[in-house]
């Protein structure tokens, strides 16, 4: 579990890549508008898409600008139970004392905390949640006293998991899918993503995307980290085909 206060902007980037920038992809710009609307409506939102497309980074970056003091971020890496969620929220909301043993008491405590002031709850890796877990989120959201927006973020089959729950289908105000960057988008955003790409030949960027990037930010983070290493070792100013082939060999890619 991680809470918002544990995360600085560097942690947003995969591998904590030094020098990496948050780039204004179309998905990020749309997300900012969507989050602004869902926060204003105090509703639920689902951000979904394959792993590595920048969902979590975009949500973190957007909410850091939109509601920095109100965000409570929780993440699950295995299939949690409602009990796990209660405890994670207890910690994330910094509720003092000992967690109650009875669910009804626990929920009353959480509702009290969530009624004190507005909060945005970000639930990452939402594809791991069971129906009972979604029931708990719904229960907290439906309560008349709580003052919350809930943002579910998930990869894999998150969309299918959430869509099959009528309780969420009727409550999720905005669904947003993150997709791979197409070639045109790659050429537009990668030079701004990291200084090593600023003066790169667009054909080399396209070459890297075809063989290893595949429009996926996480893949581009790896490529960039290796390019940074290569440029430092070879004392070169910008990537070229030779460097990229060396990077591909480290990534297990085709190397063209």
């Amino acid at each position: 579990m991680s809470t918002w206060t544990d995360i600085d902007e560097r942690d947003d980037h995969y591998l904590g890549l030094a020098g990496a920038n948050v780039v204004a992809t179309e998905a990020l710009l749309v997300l900012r508008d969507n989050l602004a609307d869902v926060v204003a409506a105090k509703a639920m939102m689902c951000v979904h898409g394959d792993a590595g497309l920048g969902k979590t980074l975009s949500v973190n970056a957007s909410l850091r600008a939109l509601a920095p003091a109100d965000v409570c971020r929780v993440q699950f890496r295995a299939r949690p139970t409602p009990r796990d969620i209660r405890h994670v929220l207890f910690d994330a909301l910094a509720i003092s004392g000992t967690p109650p043993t009875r669910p009804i008491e626990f929920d009353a405590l959480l509702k009290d905390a969530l009624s004190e002031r507005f909060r945005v709850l970000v639930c990452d890796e939402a594809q791991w949640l069971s129906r009972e877990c979604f029931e708990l989120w719904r229960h907290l959201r439906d309560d008349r006293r709580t003052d919350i927006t809930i943002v579910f973020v998930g990869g894999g089959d998150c969309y299918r998991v959430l869509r099959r729950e009528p309780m969420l289908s009727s409550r999720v105000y905005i669904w947003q899918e993150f997709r791979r960057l197409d070639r045109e988008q790659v050429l537009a955003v990668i030079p701004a993503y990291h200084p090593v790409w600023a003066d790169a030949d667009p054909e080399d960027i396209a070459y890297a995307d075809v063989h290893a990037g595949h429009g996926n930010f996480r893949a581009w983070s790896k490529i960039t980290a290796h390019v940074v290493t290569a440029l430092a070792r070879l004392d070169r100013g910008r990537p070229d085909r030779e460097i990229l082939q060396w990077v591909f060999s480290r990534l297990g890619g085709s190397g063209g």
Partner: protein
Amino acid sequence: MDKVRVLLDPADDMQVSAGLLERHEPARGRVVVHPTPGTSSLQAFAHDVLGALGRAVNRLDAEQLAGPATAWRAVAAWMVTDQVEDLVVLRADRLAAGAWTRVLELCRETGSRVLLVCHTPQIPARLAAVLAGTGHQLLTGLPQALNPRGTHPHPGSGQTRPLGPALTSRICRASSTRISGTTGARHSTSWAPQGSPAPTPSTGTGGTRPAGG
């Protein structure tokens, strides 16, 4: 008539739950139970009803209401004391058949009307059997569920409801159990004798009902 109603909400529409929760007004005899997720015991459901009735759920042990028998006796007592006319149970499709049985008994004893909300296309088979012989009414839309009782007046306006002997006995037993209200609750925590008008709403801080009724 129409003491038992079942509302089907196959789309699990937020407006249905929100619309009913907005009607939660114990002081006017309308109580909406929003069951705790991830629990299935009869005891946990009794605590949910007590919570909906405004009782402090963080003092169940102190009030000796942790056990199912005492909890249900307290529920019955407060249902009568608060003159609950309408009991709405959300997420009823997720409850055990035993909980439905107990709710139907409770409403029969207290004279309350019950609305069981199933967020499913139909009543689950394991629960439908519980309704046999109740003459229940099936509703398919929120407007029907929100339809007022028509000419049936609320007892807070001066009428009182007679209690059956079984309930009188339950209340007498329950009255030996201390029941406190929630801090800042919408209810008075003082004991209202049988047949008395509804207790005056108060912002009391958890007074204790004297034993003996």
